[in-house]
């Protein structure tokens, strides 16, 4: 079952008088439960591709369909609501809300979704336990290590029960041990809960774990390798 269907996607940035084609006519699709990595050198367009899939940026041309909805046709506030209900984000710099505790950060999205307090409480603790932070639920981000913060970010991304999770270089700021722990957690969630993960990365440790590796260069897909 296709979760994401991308057709002839193009993104051109008009930086001063120079036009930059960050994504150049990409067509791709992702099935439910994929654990895919988009790789490529810096400036190849992988983050732009991820931003377009996540509805954070508008394509210049082409179509992105998520679960049958053409997100290019949504206006700004519809897109925000669409992201809230369908997409989980994990950023390179964790990007947790600094004034909220780990539990509150995870609850935050559910609160935006209008979930009841009991449900929020149960799910946030369950998710934090799943990422190995059951003991640190009341710690603020500043009291957590980089690896721990990224695990909270994963729990936050999962909180809204999204159709897929987009992770932009999630291990870039982590040491080997934290990377290993995080990847294992995400792999486990992918296998057990059938959650779709799409990473942009040039971390070989992530690439090794991925079951699909899409290589992007100069805004084009140069290879799309599926592994077992």
């Amino acid at each position, binding site marked *: 079952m296709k979760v994401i269907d991308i057709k002839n996607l193009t993104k051109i940035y008009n930086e001063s008088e120079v036009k930059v084609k960050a994504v150049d006519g990409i067509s791709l699709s992702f099935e439910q439960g994929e654990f895919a990595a988009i790789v490529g050198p810096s400036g190849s367009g992988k983050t732009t591709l991820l931003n377009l899939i*996540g509805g*954070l940026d508008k394509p210049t041309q082409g179509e992105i369909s998520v679960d049958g909805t053409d997100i290019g046709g949504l206006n700004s506030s519809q897109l925000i609501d669409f992201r809230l209900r369908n997409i989980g984000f994990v950023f390179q710099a964790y990007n947790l809300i600094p004034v*909220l505790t780990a539990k509150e950060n995870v609850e935050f999205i559910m609160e*935006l979704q209008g979930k009841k307090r009991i449900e929020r409480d149960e799910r946030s603790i369950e998710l934090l336990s799943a990422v190995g932070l059951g003991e640190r639920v009341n710690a603020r981000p500043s009291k957590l290590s980089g690896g721990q913060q990224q695990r909270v970010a994963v729990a936050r991304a999962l909180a809204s029960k999204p159709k897929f999770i987009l992770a932009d270089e999630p291990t870039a700021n982590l040491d080997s041990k934290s990377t290993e722990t995080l990847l294992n957690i995400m792999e486990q969630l992918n296998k057990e809960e059938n959650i779709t993960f799409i990473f942009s990365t040039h971390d070989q440790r992530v690439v090794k774990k991925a079951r699909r590796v899409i290589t992007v260069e100069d805004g084009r897909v140069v290879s799309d390798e599926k592994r077992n």
Partner: protein
Amino acid sequence: MRKTFIMAWRNIWRNKRRTLITVASIFFAVFFAVIMRSFQLGSYDHMIHQAIESFSGYIQIQNKDFLDDPTLDNTIPYDQNLLSKVNTVDNIKIAVPRVESFALASTGIQSKGVLVTGIDPEKEKLLSDPENRIVKYRFTPEIVAKILAKTNLPKKQLGLLKSNQNKSFSSLSRISLDLALDKKLENTLFPIINELASFNGNYLTSHDDGVLLSDRLSKYLKANVGDTIVLMGAGYHGTTAANVFPVRGIVQILSPELDNKLVYMTLENSQEFFSLENRITSLNINLDDIDDMLETHSKIKEAIQSDLVTVKTWEEFNPTMKQQIEGDSVGGVIFIGILYFIVLFGIIGTVLMMIAERKRELGVMVAIGMSKMKLTFVLIIEMLFLGFIGMITGLGASAPLIILGNRNPLKMTGEMAKMYEDMGFDPVMPLAWFDQYFFWQGAIIMIMVLIACYLPLRRVRKMKVISALRA
């Protein structure tokens, strides 16, 4: 919703120094605005109390043409019918009849145009209270010389005594103020003043045929208690008004303008003198509750229902004072406006900094699904928290001062005190009691915070998530 408030509260304490500076600027703006406005409004209340409540009354009933043409031909009949109609209205403290007209006064040595004011001696005690303004002491050059011969005053009091030569006083307390006497000097000097400078004078009795002269006028006419003066003028419908009146007392009027020309006589005497029979120029009314002046004014109008008579509030028959107060008030409001304007820019700066510092964080919130409307709401709550803390502390700090300054008005001394007295006011500066002005300062701050939020929050609404995430 609860989380929104928690987030907003925690956010404002992320940068404690900036929060404290912003709160302090709001605190001082509210504090100074409240105290300044309280002093201003307190002084207006005091002026109104002194000039209106203690002389003209808040409401006057006059002939409909009297304000434009204040002659005796435009008088009204004073009878039980008028009084009983007026007395049906609630909120009336006292209604005092007056006859006011001009005449020429002469003592044979000097003559001068004077304002003859016919009063009911008993009722007038509740309005202008001339009895308490009767001159009891006078420092003539001879008396000053005698006092100096009898005492050994310090240099300062010596100078003050000489500078007060030829002045009259209605009380020893005013002498004490003018000569800057302490208790010890009062004990030494007062018996001597009582012995040498006492001045005989009496208030008018109900059917008195004498007059009271204002202090400056009596000096000009060189008339003293026991002397007689001749008054000549035009009476009702062009009749001649002329008579001789014995001087019963000298009365000190605080307004220099009035002190140069005022002659008090009984209402009965003035009606006879001006051939007015039972007519008066105005019925001057004081109220129990000044806040209900306009309502009372309407009710009196309704009760009288006469085409010949008009009812005027003090703002109508004394527009000069009203304009003075309004002019001064506008000045004060402009000053406070400037103060708030400066603070407004401080608040705008704070919001802009808050947004600039947290651009990435705000971008993440929108990226993960927070609507810009909710995000804007969080930021507004943060600013309202800052405004609220500043406002509450500002109002809280000013409240005890208002209570203290209202119960114990600031007493002025020296030249400032004399200036106030010469203008006809007690030398005190009371603070106005809590009223709308107090709560308005709080409301203005909160409105300002909302205004300050507008431009920066517009930025949030127009924020592009992708560029915010790159910040």
